[in-house]
């Protein structure tokens, strides 16, 4: 596979390390009264679609960026690649 890095262009998948479902960005608030449930769902009940999947990849042998890659798990077609930091900021995770 090739991941089209938003800053570096197309790069072989062997430069990357996979983590999984991009919703791992959305770490729950531990102060919430249902924190235990939220953390359980956050960590264990991940998206696993047969189709478009937003997922986290780390460019370990590249620029060390975490990326959010939108990839179809049936065809492996990649339609979008973003810097995870931007995604996280857009999701309001600025502290």
């Amino acid at each position, binding site marked *: *596979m*090739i991941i089209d890095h938003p800053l570096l262009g*197309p790069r*072989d998948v062997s430069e990357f*390390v996979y*983590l999984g479902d991009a919703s*791992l*960005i959305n*770490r*729950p608030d*531990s*102060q919430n009264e249902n*924190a*235990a449930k939220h*953390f*359980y769902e956050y*960590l264990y009940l991940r998206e696993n679609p047969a189709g478009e999947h937003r997922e*986290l990849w*780390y460019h*370990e042998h590249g620029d*060390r*960026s*975490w990326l959010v890659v939108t990839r179809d798990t049936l*065809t*492996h*077609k*990649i339609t979008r690649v973003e*810097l*995870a*930091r931007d*995604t*996280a*900021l857009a999701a309001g*995770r*600025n*502290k």
Partner: protein
Amino acid sequence: MSQINRISGGLIDRDKTLNFKFDGRVFEGHPGDTLASALLANGQRLVGRSFKYHRPRGIVTAGSEEPNALVQLRRGAHQEPNTRATETELFEGLEATSQNHRGSLKYDLMAVNDLLSPFLTAGFYYKTFMWPKGFWEKVYEPAIRASAGLGRLSGEPDPDTYDKGFLHCDILIIGGGAAGLSAALTAGRSGARVILAEENFRMGGRLIAETLELGGMSGTEWVTETLAELTAMTNLRFMPRTTVYGAFDHGIYGTLERMTDHLSSNEQKPRQVLWRIYSKRAILCAGATERLIAFGNNDRPGVMLAGATRAYVNRWAVTPGQRIAIFTNNNDGWRTATDLTEKGVEVTAVVDTRDGPARVTPSGASVVMGGRIIDTKGRHGIRSLTLSNGQTIPADCLAVSGGWNPNVHLTCHQGGRPVWRDDIAAFTPGDNLPVGMTVAGAANGSLGLAGALAEGGKAGNVATQDIGYSRSNYTAPKTEEEAVGISAFWYVKESRQRSWLDLQNDVTIKDVQLACQEGFSAVEHMKRYTTLGMATDQGKMANVPALAVLAECTNKSIPDTGTTVFRPPYSPVSIGAFAGRSRGNDFRPYRLTPSHDWAVEQSAVFVETGMWLRARWFPQPGETHWRQHVDREVLQTRKSVGVCDVTTLGKIDIQGRDAPAFLNSVYANAFGKLAVGKVRYGLMLREDGIAMDDGTTARLSEKRFVMTTTTANAVSVFRHLEFCRQCLWPGMDVHVISATEQFAQYSVAGPNSRRLLGRLVDPEFDISNEAFPFMACAEITVCGGTPARLFRISFSGELAYEIAVPTRYGDALIRVLIAAGEPFDVVPYGTEALSVMRIEKGHPAGGELNGQTTAHDLGMGRLLSKSTDYIGNTLRQRPGLNFEDRPTLMGFRPVDRSTNLTAGAHIIAKGKEATMENDEGWISSVASSPTLKYSIGLGFIKRGSRRLGDVIRVVNPLKGEDVEAEIVSPHFFDPDGERLRV
């Protein structure tokens, strides 16, 4: 007589003669020959034995689809099993032997299997060999295994080397035949970066195997002219002897280039190179593969594909026989007759399954329209054929044309399913092709030359325009088009003899019918039950006829019965090529510590820890056992001072305004208030609450920390920190960068460590106990101004320091430390002594931080930060991680001090049976403590902390050990840490 079947013409170099050996006999051939063409030239028809029945077999094809002519190539450690004679380029001194026989090739003792064939039907083994129980493994299976397999591995390491590489192009053209060359012309003329890969050693495909004319030239002339233009292009890379074996995601093609396989000696150069080709577009011009018609005893040596016959005659100037008959269901058979006649080879008969008039009548030949061959005669090679009308035809070679299968293999590698075309009775590429791929020529079902030339040229133009190049001029040369005119005909029903579908695996029509009868009527069931298509040729010839037989059994059409999809590789690829250089010592890189050269000088013994090589111990003259090295290193360190290279620990430079907050969140214990100039132990959890890693983190300034990690987790912790920084808390001003390699770091431990360091540290820095107490850190200079970092931390339990200098001084520093330590009898110590001392101190390491233990399990519950949120804080509180019975870390020592504990042993209560129900824990690390003079262990035991002083059994059924041991504090040595603070 030599080369009795050699005829005129051909693309061989008759000026040079090459000697080669087959089964010990010496033969001659010429450059340009394959092993197969040279064997045929010498009249050698019998070349191998089939897999199951050990039937005599000859050469059937002229390409990579060959099912029969598999030989053991070369000798000794270079021997290469299952090598296709049809693909093997002849070289001087080539040695080949035939495979799969006991006794000689001609008189194979295993041929008895053929007589037993009524019992050895498809799937017979599932129905028997079950009685008496236990006989399968002791009697039947070993017997079956003994006869398994075709070729033989040498059993020695492969002496050749392999390499890999990466190529990038706009357009990859797969196949250098008529379509591929035409595509290369248009693609190349546009200026795009083009790669043309051809499996054969000679470009041209069928053009150099046929006598077709194009543009007023012979095929060979046109190929030569075209190559002249193409080779002049700097934007085009030619790759003959190169098989594109797989289509992978996003335009990546797996490709094998055979670099030196065709040479007598490779002169130390890689034998093969495995390329990963990154392409924007690919044009598949892989041609087509001919198939047989099944009839009685159609597997005898001498039965050959008609197209292969022509290739041998035209390209290699070899006739496969002196009297050749032809069996066809399409016009190709007739072309064979014409070519043979033109070369003066006797054609004894043309048998066409179609009705209608004969197309030509070669002189002396019988022509039978609507004819059927029902049997062949000749044990080691055919002598005659029998027709359904009773006629017997003499022939020592039978050229069979059952139609052509487009080579759609690569179109299937990403889920594409071929579609059936009745007009050519074959599967052609479906939709769902690999992204960026188009197919042209015979591979696309355009079996004629004109179609191939036109489609190839067009495909090149379309692809270049697609990616932004301009169209180039191209007019396909004129050629005489001839329709295939196939009338599907799969097998001769009238045959009473066994009719082969899969020649290598010995699958016959009856096997397929029996599979169907037994309910294995799904294509995949049939294939798996009969093993059809699973031989080294992957059913390139057999799959479609078998599908036709199955369709008949199930009363369905071929497309309704199923299709046949292909998986990589297109043709088999050596495992060595996939491994490339990564074998032996080059399997993975070595990481060497800064003191490595020095340690080698000291005759240190090394140990692999991840990629690192670390000194394990430093033997001294007179010592005969490793325990002596380790005991000495430990005792001397505890007595005076020892030095150990600890560079391999991960070091991460952490800077930023929010660095304290960041550390507070990634560590389970509090870090926010760590003072500048201080170090603290840190425990990091995973989000699931399990301990992830530990280490110390020092605060060098307000905004700067340096974290250490374990050697094993340096990379994963760094990745985790980047995740936290970029994904979880992107609003924090914090940066991390690895500094593992930047510093050479040595532990200096023992009562004299301060005195030793005092000889190095520049005088303006006060390292007295008062000025530089336990857990202090500072940036200092040593040896007259060399910058260094000093940490007063201890893994050994002694007064100890870690000193770090930029790695360029690392080699010098170890030498200086040893020199400066001379008055104190300083000892270098290795990882083993390090481990003994940490176990004596009860510090957890890999055996304890194994990804399954919590802070509580490790006895560090009290360390956990109470006020803040940190990774793992929520889920660590789950009941399953906190129930009373969870094993916790304790120390163990044998009641009988002369006995030893074993890491990995389990803990059972006294008087209880050693079963899993009674299992109370395990020993995770052990050491023979030279300090305490007995064996000690760390381990996990249920309700550990409340069982201090209890005696339990440490059992090790693997070694038959059962030792009584006392549960003690894990801090065996200096439990109050007095030695640390002096």
